[in-house]
């Protein structure tokens, strides 16, 4: 068996690790250079193959790691060498980075394959087939950047990947940049994501600067080795590093208060939401905390804050998800909530639980997003079909993502329904799907480590089951609520096959880290020494399951029974959501996302805009331009040169010159009288002169 040979072959396979970055780059270069002449299928195949080969490299690394669990650092090139700063391009191969590589390349490959089918339709529905190739170039670029992020052996290289994935996220959210509300909605969403991430990156940068100031190096190994001494010498520095790093994490992983960009990021094509904004990029923050675990372990205050941020985010976003009608927005808030679970876990020190949930979440959330993409495209097809047959007025505004327009898709899209159901149950944490094991491990750990956070997460778990149940019932059950939903069609095989694979992983992923066996924890222990295997607490598991089942039961009562009754009310008086009747204003608060966006607009953005207007209009234009530049400099210079030209030059300089001339003339006019022309006068002068000289000589 080849893998056995790899496992026993020795560490030389670790040297393959640079390929994990270079293969996607080769793929994207191929598509840029010659992709235009190849067909869509070939472009998609090249991109998917690049991602698949990266996955193969990751698998080889993982198998080698089984034989050599100590891992390796593979240096590639020196990068910056100034004074004490020695940053290099080097790839860290250990169980943590390889786990991330497997997730990124594995889920990434499935999403690439799915995208071939999805984007084929998407570029046609949006009316620009030429953009098919661009999509895959961006996707490969993302894989490369993400690989740089997870394989870095120092914080500086990690930051390059961190920014690279941010760029790809921006490019892909704004993929249809001329679409969206008012023709710029998508561009605004992309900008919002970019700017919000910059705020987080600012925190990351400050953390990196303090880190270098305290440690004199960016290298992981050196930093973690020196951490105890530095912590003893200056404990404030470690606290500052960890907290500023948390700011970076809140930006990238969409935690409170910087979570606002992720729901808007759903403007990107659905595979992007699945890959970047659910499975991989947004987990970079979790990875960062896991990687920096040694630092966080030294400051319990920071750990408590991180765990609290995660816990609050988990509950906060889960409640918002309950009030959303857009199928992708529900998933977006669900992602924020699940990221809250992971951040809380890694924050409180339960690294294995957090990373396990990261992997599990990558499976089922990618599945859910891709499933929702399948649903949206199915409904959109139905919409076009209905339009073509005149059952709907063409041009009427129709939102294929609004769950109120769906219903009854269970029979129209059988396969999508089943895999979506599996994803939803996994997310809700139903035994024995992967979400049950991973979420349960986090809950059990938090009960021991941070009891406050435990209660937050438990309530969040209830809401998770609730919003997923609501979504499944609204989308797939009942009667179709629009012609489009009634005529929806199932997606092609290139889209459904990855769904099936992900569904399979969502079912059996729990085997990775079963309680008692702790395969995954043992695997990570090679990298993160002070891990402790999470205990399985039966009470917690049963409690969480009861919460989840209660949530689902509640949605069944509300959205299955009551919703069907509601359909008999005439549409004009019919409330759009049964929960609105039950909860009233609370639902409105959730529907409006606690008005966080509006709060930011009022507190930060509007004053900021007003300030920039003031700066531009008053300070820059009126003060600097009008007053300082025009009046003071230009006018002053003018007046000075006028003074110099008229008063000074004409008056004084010319006056001196002319005065000299006229004085000479006047003097000469006096002197000329001596020149009489009479020779006797001259003779007399000579005589007088001689007499004077002789008189002087005599009298001397």
């Amino acid at each position, binding site marked *: 068996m080849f893998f056995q040979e790899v496992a026993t072959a020795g560490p030389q396979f670790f040297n393959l690790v640079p390929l994990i970055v270079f293969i996607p780059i080769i793929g994207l270069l191929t598509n840029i250079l010659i992709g235009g002449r190849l067909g869509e299928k070939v472009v998609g195949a090249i991109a998917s193959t690049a991602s698949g080969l990266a996955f193969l490299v990751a698998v080889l690394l993982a198998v080698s790691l089984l034989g050599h669990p100590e891992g390796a650092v593979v240096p590639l090139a020196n990068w910056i060498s100034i004074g004490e700063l020695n940053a290099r391009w080097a790839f860290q191969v250990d169980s943590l980075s390889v786990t991330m590589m497997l997730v990124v390349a594995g889920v990434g490959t499935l999403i690439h394959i799915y995208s071939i089918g999805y984007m084929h339709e998407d570029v046609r529905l949006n009316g620009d087939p030429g953009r098919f190739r661009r999509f895959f170039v961006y996707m490969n670029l993302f894989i490369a950047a993400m690989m740089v992020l997870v394989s870095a052996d120092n914080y500086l290289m990690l930051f390059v990947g961190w920014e690279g994935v941010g760029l790809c996220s921006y490019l892909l959210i704004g993929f249809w940049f001329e679409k969206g509300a008012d023709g710029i909605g998508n561009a605004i969403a992309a900008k919002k994501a970019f700017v919000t991430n910059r705020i987080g990156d600012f925190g990351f940068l400050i953390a990196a600067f303090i880190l270098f100031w305290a440690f004199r190096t960016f290298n992981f190994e050196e930093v973690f080795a020196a951490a105890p001494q530095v912590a003893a010498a200056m404990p404030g520095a470690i606290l500052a590093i960890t907290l500023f790093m948390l700011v970076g994490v809140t930006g990238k992983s969409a935690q409170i208060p910087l979570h606002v960009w992720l729901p808007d990021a759903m403007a990107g094509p659905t595979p992007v939401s699945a890959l970047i904004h659910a499975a991989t990029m947004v987990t970079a923050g979790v990875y960062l905390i896991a990687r920096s675990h040694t630092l966080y372990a030294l400051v319990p205050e920071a750990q408590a804050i991180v765990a609290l941020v995660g816990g609050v985010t988990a509950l906060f976003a889960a409640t918002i998800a309950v009030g959303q009608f857009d199928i992708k927005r529900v998933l977006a808030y669900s992602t924020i909530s699940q990221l809250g679970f992971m951040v809380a876990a890694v924050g409180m020190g339960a690294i294995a639980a957090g990373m396990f949930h990261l992997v599990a979440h990558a499976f089922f959330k990618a599945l859910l997003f891709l499933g929702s993409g399948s649903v949206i495209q199915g409904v959109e097809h139905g919409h076009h079909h209905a339009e073509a047959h005149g059952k709907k007025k063409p041009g009427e505004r129709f939102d294929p993502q609004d769950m109120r327009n769906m219903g009854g898709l269970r029979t129209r899209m059988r396969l999508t329904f089943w895999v979506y159901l599996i994803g939803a149950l996994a997310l809700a944490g139903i035994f024995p799907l992967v979400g049950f094991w991973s979420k349960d491990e986090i809950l059990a750990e938090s009960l021991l480590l941070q009891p406050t956070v435990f209660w937050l997460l438990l309530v969040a778990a209830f809401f998770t089951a609730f919003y997923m149940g609501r979504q499944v019932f609204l989308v797939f059950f009942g009667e179709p609520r629009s012609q489009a939903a009634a005529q929806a069609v199932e997606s092609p095989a290139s889209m459904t096959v990855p769904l099936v694979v992900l569904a399979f992983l969502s079912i059996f992923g729990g085997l990775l880290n079963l309680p008692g066996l702790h395969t995954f924890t043992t695997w990570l222990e090679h990298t993160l020494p002070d891990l402790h295997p999470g205990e399985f607490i039966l009470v917690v598991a049963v409690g969480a399951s009861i919460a989840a089942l209660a949530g689902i039961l509640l949605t069944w009562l509300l959205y299955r029974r009551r919703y069907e009754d509601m359909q008999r009310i005439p549409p004009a008086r019919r409330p759009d959501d049964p929960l609105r009747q039950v909860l009233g204003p609370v639902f409105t608060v959730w529907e409006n996302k606690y008005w966080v966006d509006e709060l930011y607009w009022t507190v930060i953005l509007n004053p900021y805009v007003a300030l920039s207007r003031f700066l531009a209009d008053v300070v820059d234009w009126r003060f600097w331009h009008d007053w300082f530049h025009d009046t003071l400099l230009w006018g002053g210079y003018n007046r000075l040169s006028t003074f110099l030209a008229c008063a000074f030059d004409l008056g004084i300089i010319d006056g001196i010159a002319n005065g000299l001339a006229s004085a000479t003339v006047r003097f000469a006019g006096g*002197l*000329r*009288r001596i*020149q*009489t*022309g*009479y020779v*006797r006068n001259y*003779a007399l002068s000579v005589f007088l002169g001689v007499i004077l000289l002789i008189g002087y000589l005599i009298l001397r």
Partner: protein
Amino acid sequence: MPVSYYIVLSAVLFTLGALGVLIRRNALVIFMSVELMLNAANLAFVAFSQLYGTLNGQIFVFFVMTVAAAEVAVGLALIVAIFRTKHSINVDEISSLKG
């Protein structure tokens, strides 16, 4: 005879010459007055030469006479030239170089 007599005579002659140069308007008379001044100087030279018993003064007189002769030649030529253009040798009428 004491040498002071010669010197006094020389001074009187020189003064007469100088006055002639300053007062008279006829170029020829002025010229003659100049000659008188030169010869007054010659007389002083000879007198001092006799007094000190050296020949320097006597020899210098020859040089003065030579220069005087040259001067006379140039001066008379000038006067003739002036007379040809101005038809007058009144020096007060020859004042075209006045400032």
